[in-house]
């Protein structure tokens, strides 16, 4: 448990600090690289929550595909590659107030309701039993039985989004 808490602390600090840099940096390419750090740390946090398959998908889809898509977007919109002072608008003050207010309200609500509720640690359960309950095989079984219709809908949505993106971006 102690090791997991230390790992959580490191990962949480890395993700929050990189996220803060992501929304304040003056360099667009650095923002994309900070996004990689945030997404990888969040993927590692999924491992702490016994969700290995989601962690692997996070790395594959987010770091492998979406960040590359962002880099292409930066390249195609010919963003200024060095420091640029034109990335922020003039609402920074009020945006910071809104974000701090939100974090305050959320923290109050969560601490008030969940307090010191502990996550189950499953130390009395064997690795095999844990895998049978929530491993990759169980997730796959669930996707192709309980969640089959939503899964097909997601497939249709991805196809529609792909066709839509091509229609929008095509030059003719």
């Amino acid at each position: 448990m102690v090791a997991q808490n230390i790992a959580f602390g490191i990962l949480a600090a890395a993700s929050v600090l990189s996220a803060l840099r992501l929304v304040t940096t003056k360099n667009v390419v650095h923002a994309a690289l900070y996004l990689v750090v945030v997404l990888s740390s969040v993927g590692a946090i999924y491992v702490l929550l016994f969700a290995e398959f989601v962690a692997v998908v996070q790395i594959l889809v987010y770091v492998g595909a979406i960040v590359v898509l962002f880099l292409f977007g930066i390249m195609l919109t010919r963003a200024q590659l060095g420091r640029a002072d034109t990335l922020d608008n003039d609402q920074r003050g009020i945006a910071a107030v809104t974000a701090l207010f939100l974090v305050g309200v959320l923290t109050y609500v969560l601490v008030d309701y969940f307090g010191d509720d502990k996550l189950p640690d499953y130390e009395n359960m064997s690795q095999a039993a844990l895998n049978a309950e929530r491993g990759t095989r169980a997730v796959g079984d669930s996707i192709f039985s309980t969640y089959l219709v939503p899964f097909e809908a997601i497939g249709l949505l991805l196809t529609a989004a792909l066709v839509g993106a091509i229609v929008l971006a095509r030059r003719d």
Partner: protein
Amino acid sequence: MLINQFLLLGAALFCIGVYGVLARKNGVLVLMSIELILNAVNINLIAFGHLWGGESAISGQVFALFTIAVAAAEVGVGLAIILLIYRNRTSVDLDEVDMMKG
């Protein structure tokens, strides 16, 4: 580990994302901040699934996978729209996109 560790991390990432959406005017950076918000939601889904265990653990993971797929679709269409804005007015400055203002 406490459930609140994960929920508060999600809340922090969510609020940083909200700040990014409000304070950035480069379209690509606004999309990146939206990704932060979606990741915060995924942390919450998986944390609650882990908290309740059994069927809920699977449901949380499956919903997180669906969110990731929707996020991928959203980024594809979003970047296509930003590219179109750039092509029409040679800038991705979202403050200049105010055709809908009366």
